């Protein structure tokens, strides 16, 4: 069975928000209608986004590092938001594991948002329905697009290629190999939701240098230094030639 997912390399993400804006652009232009922005130019703006990049500081200065965490719907393999939906508007596709909302069935009761521990669902105040990341389902199967473009907008937009897209149930896929080989992990594994999206941890590259490695033991100059140095009053090479 296929389970499409994003694998996001936190070691590579620079927190540029290109995935956020490209996601907003693609999904606000789609056939489902615009993602609402309330009071976009006023003091208290608010908007619907399927993807957000959040920044965390880890550790205490000077031993700190910055973590940018792009987070969208994780397309859980056991999504708690689906069984609670009273209308069946929230569903998980059998064929590719994408969790979707049928905007024509949603009554806007917001119960699924309560049931999502990740806060991945956002209520659209204009359309009065629950919205969420679709993994660009209207794009990845669009045969009118070039093969290379049949990827979620966020994956296409990422300038550092931090976002990988593929089937995590296929052990040979790029995403499966990345998760396996680089310690891919899931967010809040304690709730048993089995998120399909994985994150590759930040990796620190360190080399161990021993003190004797800082000096080259077979340095020829060092051998010269051990020879007796000529003294100002002693015989010189000119003396020998003059003799």
């Amino acid at each position, binding site marked *: 069975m296929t389970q499409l997912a994003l694998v996001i390399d936190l070691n590579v993400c620079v927190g540029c928000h290109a995935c956020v804006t490209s996601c907003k652009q693609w999904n606000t232009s789609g056939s489902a209608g615009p993602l609402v922005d309330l009071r976009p130019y006023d003091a208290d703006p608010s908007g619907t986004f399927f993807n957000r990049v*959040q*920044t965390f500081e880890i550790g205490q200065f000077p031993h700190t590092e910055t973590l940018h965490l792009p987070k969208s719907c994780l397309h859980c393999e056991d999504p708690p938001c689906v069984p*609670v939906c*009273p209308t069946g508007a929230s569903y998980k596709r059998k064929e590719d594991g994408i969790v979707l909302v049928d905007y024509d069935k949603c009554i806007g*009761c917001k119960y699924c948002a309560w049931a999502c521990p990740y806060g991945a669902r956002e209520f659209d105040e204009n359309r009065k329905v629950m919205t969420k990341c679709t993994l660009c389902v209207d794009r990845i199967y669009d045969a009118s697009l070039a093969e290379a473009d049949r990827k979620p907008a966020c994956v296409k937009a990422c300038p550092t290629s931090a976002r990988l897209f593929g089937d995590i149930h296929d052990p040979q896929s790029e995403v499966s190999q990345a998760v396996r080989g680089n310690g891919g992990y899931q967010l809040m594994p304690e*709730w048993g939701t089995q998120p399909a999206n994985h994150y590759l941890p930040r990796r620190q590259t360190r080399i161990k240098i021993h003190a004797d490695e800082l000096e080259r033991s077979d340095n020829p100059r060092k051998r010269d230094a051990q020879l007796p140095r000529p003294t100002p009053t002693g015989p010189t090479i000119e003396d020998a030639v003059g003799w």
Partner: protein
Amino acid sequence: MRPALSVIFLTTLIGAGQGLFLALYTVQLYVLFHLLPAPEAQSFYTLGSLIAALLLLAGLIASFFHLGHPERAWRAATQWRTSWLSREVIVLPALLGTITLFGLAHWLEWRSALATLPSGGRVDPTVLFGALGTLLAFALFVCTAMIYACLPFLREWHSPLTVVNFIFLGGASGFTLASAFAAQVAPSLVGFLAGWALILTALALVARAASLVRNARLRPGSTAQSAVGVKHPRIVQKSQGAMGGSFNTREFFHGASAQTMRAVASGFLLLAFAVPVALLALGLAQDASWAFTAAFALQFLGLLGERWYFFAQANHPQNLYYRAIA
């Protein structure tokens, strides 16, 4: 979580309606077994059923204000196999219909005996509708409470105490209302109903206090570490990804200060439990019907506060991702 007024009114109104209906049927069963005198006025059942039905209807109407698309509400009855919300959507109108039938059967005096008890009591359609209604009333308590209790990561709600509280709090307000109502139309039943109202209010206080103690000692199930997947004791959010608000910052934060929360907690403990107990006792001692009415009015007010606190106290794990704006 941000408490929604529509859901606060839905749960408290139907709770009182269910409790009132259970009180009416309890009286009828006691009368059937000759343990209580029959109410002075037949309107005790008919008018009582009407009030219970109106309370349920008011709750149902309140619930529509919670929906983005109320015109599609009928769809909510389809997923009863998996969703407690869907089950509630089915059971609530079923109970409303059964209470209406119960009231109608009393009003139109459908008294043909279907069976006769050895004690001489007649089992007529009102007894059957009442029994069905009792089942549905308890089913509705369980459905309503399980909507909240079934979410494992909302730890304040994920407990059998949630279900127990919905039953006891609904029962207490219903029996208090029944004693206030009986004081007007059937004074001989006031002692019985007010007695049960006292017992249920005391039981509700024990269960609610138990859940308050439990919630005060809860440890969070998710931490900043598991939320971002980094093992370091100090993780500080620096940006939530947007300078403005969002659905996530509105829906999951109640925004009240710790002081307000404490005030609401002590307020509802006083209004929903202490004051009604005192007024019910006063009403029984002084035979004052105004005391029962006041007891219900204040207890209902207290229960509105209790329900606000119930929602506000739940701490959603998604809040771990929204701890700093920028």
